[in-house]
């Protein structure tokens, strides 16, 4: 069953007098449990596609349907709720809340979702254990390494049990070893818990781990390989 269904997606930007077509008629379906990589050179449109799937960017035309809900028909508030309940995000620069501990960062989404305290605590502790941060719950981002911070970001993304996790260059700020460990972690979460991941990256390590690689060039899908 498709978690993501993208049809004839176009996204154009105006740069001065020039119109840039970041996405030019993209059609894509992603099923539940996939571990998909969107790859391509800089400017190919992979991050734009990821943002459109995540409801962070508004397409110029075409449609994006997430778990049966067409994003174009939602108000801003409804879009926020959809992101809160169905999507998880992992960003290149971790983007954690610096004044909250690892536990509180992971807990934040569950609080917004209104999960009861007891269940919240159990889920956050289990998620931090799953990402290998047991015993570091009370550390703030400034007290964690880059790799550990990105693990907190992954914990935050998956703690709310989203239908889909979108990760934009999650390994770009990490050294090779740490980046590899993070990919292994996400692969493990995909294999064991069936969490659907979509990456935008040009990191070969991520591509090696992917079950599906979608190649984008000039805003169009050039190839779509399933492994």
């Amino acid at each position, binding site marked *: 069953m498709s978690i993501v269904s993208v049809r004839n997606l176009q996204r154009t930007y105006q740069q001065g007098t020039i119109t840039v077509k970041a996405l030019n008629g993209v059609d894509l379906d992603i099923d539940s449990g996939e571990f998909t990589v969107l790859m391509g050179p800089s400017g190919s449109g992979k991050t734009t596609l990821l943002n459109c799937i995540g409801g962070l960017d508004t397409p110029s035309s075409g449609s994006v349907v997430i778990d049966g809900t067409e994003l174009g028909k939602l108000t801003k508030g409804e879009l926020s709720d959809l992101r*809160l309940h169905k999507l998880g*995000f992992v*960003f290149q620069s971790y983007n954690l809340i610096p004044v909250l501990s690892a536990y509180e960062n992971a807990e934040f989404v569950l609080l917004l979702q209104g999960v009861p305290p007891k269940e919240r605590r159990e889920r956050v502790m289990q998620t931090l254990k799953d990402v290998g941060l047991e015993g570091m719950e009370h550390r703030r981002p400034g007290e964690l390494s880059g790799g550990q911070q990105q693990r907190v970001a992954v914990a935050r993304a998956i703690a709310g049990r989203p239908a889909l996790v979108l990760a934009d260059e999650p390994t770009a700020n990490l050294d090779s070893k740490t980046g590899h460990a993070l990919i292994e972690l996400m692969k493990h979460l995909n294999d064991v818990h069936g969490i659907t991941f979509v990456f935008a990256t040009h990191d070969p390590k991520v591509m090696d781990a992917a079950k599906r690689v979608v190649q984008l060039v000039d805003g169009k899908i050039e190839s779509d390989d399933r492994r």
Partner: protein
Amino acid sequence: MLLRLAWRNLWRHKRRSLITAFAMAIAVALCMATTAFTDGMGRKMFNVMVEQQLGHIQVHHPDYPTGRKLYDTVPEAAKTMDALEGLPEVAHASAQLMGFALIGGAEETTGGQLVGVEPAREIAVTRADERIVDGRFLEDGKPGEIVLGAGLADEIDVGVGDTVVVVTQGSDGSIGNALYEVVGLFRTGNAALDKSGSMMALADLQDLLVLPDQVHKITVLGHDPDDLLALKNAAIAVVPDGTQVQTWEEASPQAVQMMAMMKFSTLIMLFLVFAVSSFGILNTMAMSVFERTRELGVLKAIGLRPGKLVQLVVAESVFLAALAGSIGFGIGGLLDVYLMVYGLDISGGNPEGMSFQGITLDPVMYGAIEPFSIFSILAALILVSTGASFVPAWRASRLDPVEAIRTE
């Protein structure tokens, strides 16, 4: 969680938050001290003008307030006084008969105002005995005595124990004159009255002016100064036909205006002080939002609704105001206590005090705490803190998450 986050965000830039909080705290403290001072002055003015002169309500001939004619009197004074004092709404009542006369000592003579009173009743209403600065006040059952304003006594060069001669025209056209012993000198706070006023027994003045059982004014104090209408209606039912009952607000619109002006000027001052301090909060919150653009974008991206983002930023500002309020109300409270206990010397070297709007204020003016003023300061603090943070909060809620996350 939002509140926890807001509180922690406040301490990201400890120095900036503390400077802003202290600036607001000083504004609060200064406003508290200033309002305590003006409220003290207002209370004093109310005390002198309303409770000691106008009363909560007045009974008089309808033409007396404007014409001040000798013949415009309230008849059946004794019976009316008894009736008024029998009303449950009435705490005290005092009758006064007015007249003008030449008052002379051994060497000097001057024109002055005569006020005939029943001493015990007058003391109960106006606490006239408290304003005696030399000698004593009049006493019931002791005719032939007079108390003079200190300024008047100076002018005609008499003191306690001296005799003055009073010459006036009676209501029947006759010339009335009599000698009275000066038993006391008073200072009321009303500059004009202190320079020309005198008081004697009501019966003495009724004889002198040939106005038996008549008075010009009955001053009434009620049990509840805030329910003047009930007091007025009760009085109307028992006063003789042809007399008028007025509340102090009706009898002296100027006094009402003066009180309103003092309150208004206090509010203007509050507005100015808080308008200036609001820029401090605005600056702090704008900087705070600007510095956290990316973080706020991330919060939006992971599903925080725009309204919640507004709540987050406003909550930070409210915490800042609460901190400022705690410090400000603490310092302001201490200043208020000082003003209430020790007062402030406003004599400017003049031991008799400063004259303001015809009323001589005591050399040392004491502060007073009015709930309205404290409420106004609190309301201003809350309004300013939420108002000043609303613009940055609104901007934060409008952030485009994609743009915001790209921000370095």
